[in-house]
């Protein structure tokens, strides 16, 4: 089923409501993406100010989640959506939870990094975390693109690529653990870096969830907890 004319309902008001939730969802996704960019910039500049900016903007994403949740509930109550409209509402309600958690992870990272910046803690691992962060950012951007364009094929490709993020995180975390063992007096800052890396991996997981929501929305198939290669074979 590939009919996504969300603007072709007999009720023009319904068209507007569905278009609005799509627009607001993409805005919310864009906001989370921007927060992650700020984290990357903050790491590069060791900037406490940028970390504070990230922490102060967390409420915006939370409010967007509440507003979208309410709008989806209202549409369900008033319109009783079916088929692709229903899948859109379900996908939006699930995706906003993931996006809100991405926002939470960026705040958590800002919180973890701030004391390191304050005491001017320097480490070679910032570079590796930056590489992981760049990879996660690309992944998140592509997932949100798949959502914007309702591109199930791109969504499946990106869902598969989450494995690369997990592999990079595992390697990095291994290095950080070794470093902690080697320098027990620096466990705390390295633990913070390890937790940052973990947050990035979690953001990758949330982006993967968004991709799975895109596949559900577009193809009507629930592909959670399923082998991605099998999914690709079945659907394309």
């Amino acid at each position: 089923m590939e009919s996504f004319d969300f603007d072709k309902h007999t009720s023009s008001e319904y068209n507007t409501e569905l278009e609005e939730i799509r627009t607001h969802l993409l805005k919310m996704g864009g906001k989370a993406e921007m927060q992650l960019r700020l984290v990357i910039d903050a790491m590069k500049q060791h900037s406490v100010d940028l970390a504070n900016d990230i922490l102060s903007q967390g409420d915006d994403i939370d409010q967007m989640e509440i507003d979208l949740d309410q709008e989806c509930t209202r549409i369900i109550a008033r319109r009783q959506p079916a088929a692709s409209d229903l899948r859109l509402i379900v996908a939006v309600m699930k995706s906003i939870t993931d996006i809100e958690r991405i926002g939470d992870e960026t705040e958590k990272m800002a919180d973890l990094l701030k004391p390191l910046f304050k005491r001017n803690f320097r480490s070679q691992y910032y570079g590796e975390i930056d590489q992981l962060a760049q990879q996660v950012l690309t992944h998140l951007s592509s997932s949100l693109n798949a959502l914007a364009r309702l591109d199930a094929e791109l969504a499946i490709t990106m869902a598969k690529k989450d494995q690369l993020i997990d592999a990079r995180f595992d390697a990095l975390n291994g290095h950080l653990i070794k470093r902690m063992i080697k320098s027990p007096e620096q466990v705390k800052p390295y633990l913070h870096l390890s937790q940052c890396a973990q947050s990035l991996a979690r953001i990758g997981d949330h982006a993967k969830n968004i991709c799975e929501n895109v596949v559900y929305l577009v193809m009507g198939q629930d592909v959670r907890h399923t082998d991605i290669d099998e999914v690709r074979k079945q659907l394309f």
Partner: protein
Amino acid sequence: MVKNMNKALLSKPSGLVEQALKVNKQTTTEDALNIDYTATVGQPNCQNAKFSTQNVNVYYANNQAIHDVSLDIGAHEVIALIGPSGCGKSTYLRCLNRMNDTIDICRVEGQILLDQENIYHQKQDPVLLRARVGMVFQKPNPFPKSIYDNVAYGPRIHGLTSNKAELDELVEASLIKAGLFQEVKDRLQAPGTGLSGGQQQRLCIARTIAVQPEVILMDEPASALDPIATAKIEELINELKENFTIVIVTHSMQQAARVSQRTAYFHMGRLIEVGDTNQIFTNPAHELTEKYITGRFG
């Protein structure tokens, strides 16, 4: 009186022929609309079929209202027929107990088997068929008689009981099954027409049940009722499926989604898609089904 009663039972919904003629007009524009239709999508066949209909075509004079519909109706299932006005769903429904026989210009072709027997066979008595395949209409149509006599009417003419006590028992059992007994038990001799709309419709269902049919056809049974009466009818449908096979025509997509196990979507006289109701309402396979259930037909 009996003649009048039969007339009331067989009354056709107003505008049926007009609707059919409208269908034909729409059909002529079908090519222009470029409808993607080659065959019914989904699972028109089922195991344990009560009704098996093959290549059914229905004509009103020269106008074709139903095109080559093949569909099985499983025993003890509730199947909902949905589609826009004039799509042929009521016409198809009325083929199942030969109600279309009452329309002179109507002609039915194809095979309709009930328990493997052809219901259009020349030896088939339509009156006996309608005792096996009962019908409930859009507008409640109780006879201008008492509540008791409304329900007792069918068993009496079909000779289903041998004495008053048996008849009393059957009337009570039918009213209980229709969920009406508690509300009317103290006024069984009161006129059926004095009940509320929802009660009248349940009385009509009790009247249908009283002749112990195997299948109940429902043509928009709740469209004239308020939400509470509608909920009672829907609850009743859910209970009745234990003992009967139910085919329901409805314009309410939510009702189809709530009460049926399978849904069949008709469009311009063709059966476009049929499948599990959960699948039809979350992920329909045909674009026309999608457009209809999401309200995208302009």
